[in-house]
């Protein structure tokens, strides 16, 4: 599904290399976890894929089902089925959460040549999905993420993911700032979306999240590269021993 080859990326303004040759292949139906020390390039990888401005791709490719992602505008990447749950969801005063969700859902449907959802259909769907994530009607009415707690913001990200039904989901430190109960809720939301046609890239610092969202593959990123790939046991190793051993081993 997602295929990244030899991806080199710099910060556009600082001329600073962040990704130094990332290779990664994620197949449909799989959950890949990406771990690694701070500053290793994990979030940058997600941002570059979703098309945030400010990065310059120097070399390499990234494709989603064969489509060159790097050539597309962010909204086209979303319509192609890519989704990033942000580490820091953005507050947008003045734009209602419902308006935002409906605009997004219908824009994607339109881009894919599907019919737009009617107000009633949309409402029914969003209410059902919000209920699973314990998002109440009041939160749906408020402006996007404004006045939301950290946990509410993350749940709101998962709600968006559930509504947009992307094929390739990237979760960027979705567990950061969550208490155990909130994390379980988020994990349940994610697990409900797992199916054979959908893949996940879960960026995290902690094994804890991976207890709830069981990965098929774990990658360790360091200094802009994926330095080690293994099964779920690799995450446990990190949890117990930190990164020092792994980094020494691959150095």
């Amino acid at each position, binding site marked *: 599904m997602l295929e990244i080859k030899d991806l080199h990326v710099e910060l556009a303004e600082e001329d600073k290399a962040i990704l130094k040759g990332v290779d990664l292949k994620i197949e449909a139906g799989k959950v890949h976890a990406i771990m690694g020390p701070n500053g290793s390039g994990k979030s940058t990888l997600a941002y570059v894929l979703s098309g945030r401005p400010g990065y310059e791709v120097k070399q390499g490719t990234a494709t989603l089902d064969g489509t060159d992602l790097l050539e597309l505008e962010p909204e086209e990447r979303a319509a192609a089925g890519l989704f990033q749950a942000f580490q820091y969801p953005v507050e947008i005063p003045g734009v209602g959460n419902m308006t*935002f969700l409906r605009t997004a859902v219908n824009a994607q449907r339109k881009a894919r040549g599907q019919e737009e959802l009617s107000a009633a259909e949309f409402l029914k769907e969003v209410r059902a999905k919000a209920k699973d994530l314990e998002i109440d009607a009041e939160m749906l009415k408020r402006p996007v993420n404004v006045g939301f707690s950290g946990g509410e913001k993350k749940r709101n990200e998962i709600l968006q993911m559930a509504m947009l039904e992307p094929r390739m989901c990237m979760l960027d430190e979705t567990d950061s700032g969550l208490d155990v109960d909130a994390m379980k809720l988020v994990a349940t939301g994610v697990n409900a979306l797992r199916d054979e046609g959908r893949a996940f890239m879960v960026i995290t610092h902690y094994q804890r999240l991976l207890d709830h969202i069981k990965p098929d593959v774990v990658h360790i990123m360091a200094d802009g590269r994926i330095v080690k790939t293994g099964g779920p046991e690799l995450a446990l190793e990190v949890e117990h021993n930190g990164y020092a051993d792994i980094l020494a081993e691959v150095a």
Partner: protein
Amino acid sequence: MALPKIKETATETRLAALSLPEGGWSEPARRAALARVQSSGLPDRRDEYWKFTRPDVLVGPDAPHAKALETDEGELFDSFDRLKIVFVDGVFDAQASDDLKLEGVSIERLAEIADQDIHWARDLYGTLEERAQTPVARPLAALNTAFAPDGVVIRVTGKPSKPISVVYHHVAEDSDPMLHHVIRVESGAEATILENGPAGARFSKCMEIDIADGGKLHHIRSQGRDHERSAVTHIFARLGAESSFKSFTMTVNGHLTRNEAVVELTGDDAIVHIAGACVGDGDFLHDDTIFITHDALNCESRQVFKKVLRNGAVGVFQGKILVKEGAQKTDGYQLSQALMLDGDSQFLAKPELEIYADDVACSHGCTSGEIDETALFYLRSRGVPEDRAADLLTLAFLAEAVDEIEDQAIAEDIVSRLENWLSRRR
């Protein structure tokens, strides 16, 4: 002190082109206003109060020509049950207007009641305008008091069941109307006044509003979409105890617009909210000049002005809150913000607070900025196309001003016009 020669000549030239309506109860007030114009002279670019906005097109003897816009957008407020009063280039259109009868309110036309001594109107006409001449002269308002041949005279005594809607059509390219409205809201009464339309090639309008204790007035206006028109408008309001005045203005396009509001809070616990949302493109200058005086205990004033500017448009804000000695527990708030959709536009702002009481809360915020790139990316990352995302954020920027409209249906009508403006700019 004698006026500078240039100013004196400009003033005389303008006055020579006008004729003062004679006879009737308003004549003394008109003569007094004329004397005010002659003593202060009409504004020019050297006046501090016109530092950011050149008043030339408002002062000259002839209205600069302005084409009336043909549009299929349909009339604003058309879907609402309302009492319609229509002026075409400043001339009352009886055919298009409703019968001026509505329970809880009496509505007359200034031009028709010269011979009837309506004492409250006589006492009010020109009075609030004159009070507002200090500390800053507003000669264009005095000029209007002296010469406006018509306007509506409204006395609200109850709670009329529907809004009073004044519609100003613009047809002739050289029309130069002046209208002067006088409104009195009696104790405990409440009404909504809607205004809509460009009114003429050059429009001068005054509204003197006197709200008695416990009275409430809602005012929502839209100034029409004609690109070349110019306008100078004044709202003068005096508020009694526990009264409330909420005014919102939408301005879409126009060559030059100067909207002044001068409000005096004279009774305890009164509330005034003045808000404006304007959007302009290219040859567009919009000026909000506000002066709010707190002269009683525990009053609230709130100013919320938002301007969306692009392609060389200019936004001006001059807003002042004056808290007089003894006006304790004043709650004053002032917000003026511009959103620049490109690098060519300008926002000029002069927020002022002058406070002589020690137990007050007054705050002001004044910013200008661009569309938030982070928010834009967030929306795009969810599949919202860039244009649509920028529109959403622009409307969100304006929302704080539009939110000042209490009636949800009216607010939605206003928002739909702002959306239309955005979608036309593609």
